[in-house]
């Protein structure tokens, strides 16, 4: 505001142009309307172009608005609001904390570039012009359709191509680092975290509704917005631990022998802690549709988990459900697991083989892509299914296509991706 020393009279923000651009953005992307309208415009002469903060304020430089066309401004609106909807500041904070580069501007710049890559590969086109000089995965020679978390690992500042001088600084809403123009949490008209979630939820609902023209990136975001996918290793591990930790296996109390505390408390019956290592049988669907790498990773994981919960090598058994057990063989040799050839590609026979063994397993872990019939009744032990994802899961309702049986309810199913 103290720009009176400038030679020319300071420009005032052309709000009407900015609002016209917002309206164009809303028309091009109706599902973002709630979020776009929730943004509050703040005039700022310190912002190089346009920027957002983590409280959903949108800072705009009068000069930038004056020299940019309505078309391009519409694209910038969508770009900025996409940072907020996809929670780039929150995710940026978490990445920064995990990688230990809190507050280092160079790394925050990498975060901003990574966030831009996640957005820019799918928001333009279809009514929105691609602005000049934006960062795209193609420009940086990295694959498209990835997430900010992936891009930030790939991006090296020193290897950035020249000509990035048109760089848009998207503000603290994009990378979590406070800017000098930010109004902060106490400034007017900010959205609280829960209000932001509510706006995100409305956008996600709009995207999840009728099959619209929303690009795949937005739809994927909507699917995962409030149920972020958890790493399958943790889920599989926890499913197996929960299964072997149940009654009849693992650590538990028993009255079989007196507790050591009994001596001190005559007349009182105390339980003692006894260990019964769990017996785990792994049924592997080795039909051609499961890749070696997937299978190897999942099998290693199961072996590691069952050892961690106290299972000895001889207590982990592997039943392979197809003759073509290529990977499993060397892997199992290295892990000291005996691989026994099973019969056919039908998982039901795998179950039968696994359950016929004596002593009976406490837990059956099945690794499969799900293209198989399942036993009609629950086996007499806990079952964990590690399911490799296959393209048919993405079939939309109404499409004709092969839809196999889903794993039954009595099994705990973990998607391995």
């Amino acid at each position, binding site marked *: 505001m103290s720009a009176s020393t400038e030679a020319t009279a300071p420009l005032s923000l052309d709000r009407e142009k900015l609002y*016209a*651009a917002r309206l164009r953005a809303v028309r091009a992307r109706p599902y973002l309307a709630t979020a776009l309208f929730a943004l509050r415009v703040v005039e700022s002469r310190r912002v190089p172009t346009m920027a957002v903060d983590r409280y959903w304020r949108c800072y705009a430089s009068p000069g930038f608005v004056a020299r940019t066309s309505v078309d391009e401004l519409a694209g910038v609106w969508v770009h900025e609001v996409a940072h907020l909807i996809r929670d780039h500041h929150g995710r940026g904070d978490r990445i920064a904390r995990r990688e230990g580069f809190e507050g280092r501007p160079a790394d925050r710049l990498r975060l901003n570039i990574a966030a831009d890559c996640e957005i820019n590969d799918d928001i333009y086109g279809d009514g929105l012009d691609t602005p000049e000089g934006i960062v795209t995965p193609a420009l940086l020679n990295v694959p498209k359709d990835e997430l900010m978390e992936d891009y930030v690992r790939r991006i090296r500042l020193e290897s950035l191509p020249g000509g990035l001088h048109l760089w848009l600084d998207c503000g603290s809403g994009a990378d979590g680092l406070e800017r000098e123009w930010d109004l902060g949490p106490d400034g007017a008209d900010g959205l609280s975290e829960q209000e932001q979630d509510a706006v995100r939820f409305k956008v996600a609902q709009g995207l999840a509704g009728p099959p619209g023209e929303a690009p795949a990136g937005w739809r994927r975001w909507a699917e995962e917005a*409030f149920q972020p996918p958890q790493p399958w290793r943790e889920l599989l591990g926890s499913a197996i631990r929960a299964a072997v*930790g149940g009654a009849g296996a693992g650590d538990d109390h028993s009255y079989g022998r007196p507790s050591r505390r009994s001596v001190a408390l005559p007349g009182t019956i105390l*339980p003692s802690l006894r260990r019964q290592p769990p017996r785990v049988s792994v049924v592997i669907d080795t039909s051609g549709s499961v890749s070696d790498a997937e299978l190897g990773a999942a099998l290693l994981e199961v072996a590691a988990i069952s050892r961690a919960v106290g299972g000895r090598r001889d207590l982990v058994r592997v039943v392979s459900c197809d003759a073509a057990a290529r990977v499993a063989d060397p892997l199992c040799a290295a892990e000291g697991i005996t691989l026994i050839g099973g019969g056919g590609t039908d998982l039901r026979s795998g179950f039968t083989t696994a359950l016929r063994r004596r002593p009976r397993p406490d837990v059956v872990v099945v690794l499969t892509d799900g293209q198989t019939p399942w036993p009609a009744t629950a086996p007499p032990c806990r079952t964990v299914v590690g399911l490799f994802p296959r393209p048919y899961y993405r079939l939309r309702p109404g499409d004709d296509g092969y839809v196999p049986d889903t794993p039954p309810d009595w099994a705990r199913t*973990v998607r391995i991706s």
Partner: protein
Amino acid sequence: MTIFATPSAELDIAADLLTLLRTTDTEPRPNPQLEAVTLAVAADLPVLLWGEPGIGKTAALHQLAESLDLPLTTVIASVHEPSDFSGLPIVGDDPAEQGVPLAPPDWAVRLVRAGRGLLFLDELSTATPAVQAALLRLVLERRIGSLQLPPGVRIVAAANPRASAADGWELSAPLANRFVHLQWTHDPEVVVRGLGGTWPRATLPRLDPELLPGAVDFARRAVTGLLTARPTLVHRLPGSETRKGGAWPSPRSWDMTLSLIAFATAAGATRDVLAQLVRGTVGDGPGLELLAWIDRMDLPDPEVLLADPAGAELPERGDRRQAALEGVVAAVNARPDRARWDAAWELLVRAAETGPPDLVVVPATTLAALRREEWEVPVAIERLAGVVDVSRRADRVPAGAGAGAGAGR
């Protein structure tokens, strides 16, 4: 013992240093997490705090107990045996005749004798399955052996998130449904300031006796309104593995939600606090739908706006303002007549003059389309020129052609 018999100057100095270290200030700082726990505890619902170890859950509960004036009993579940919760079988002289009584532990006896207190069951997730089974009876039936906990005792439990819990125990769906799940996180800023000598002091919500009937009415309207519109939300078992062990919607958890909305309303709690409670009781998806529903209930009634366009108070936030205007246009559409149509135009003009004009464009276009042949265009529309301009520029239509609100002309 003899060491302490003679006064030691060294230890005195150490004690001085400790006193200095322990002298810290507090400053008022809103703490939505603590407010949410307070309301759930006040509503007598079992709370489960999910949080990494060592982030101050216990310290927060000390503050809570102090402010509710309840004695705090902390029981670390993982160092106990199942019999400590289900009662120790004591063999008497003639078990066949007198039976074997289940003796409760001392802390339970003290709790019952006091008649009131805050029982904090820490480290629920690292206890063995048998201990957990015994604890569940305590949480759900409020029984320890043969002792029944009095109604004045409130129960809070804490658990480590599944990802960080080494032994990976998790709640079964029926059990998870009985808890209010609250995520407990730490704010690095608060910790740094606290280590610097100033800890936050939260002002805890107090229920306002005057607001009680209104709060109950509001809570009932909110929950029944949503469930009437979305009956599938009444009961939905968690499907995917990621949602297991968390909050999910069922008649029981909706009932809990109803209580929590009433408590939050009577305490004048912020929307953030309410959102934590609601999402922690019925889950994220249904919780957010309920919050969106409450948002809509908060929007001004279209009929009230139409009745007095000049004095109408429109919401400040853009998306809410647009929703309110669309509600007005929908109301006119539902019962169209000339006076209502004119009043709606006046409202749109007011909205365009007091806020961003772009969000008036869509309601104005819809309203213009509602015109009947015999209705004359109101003079007020002239004042929507700015809106028409914005709309034109957005449409890439050369000036002069009718667009947006101009369609009514």
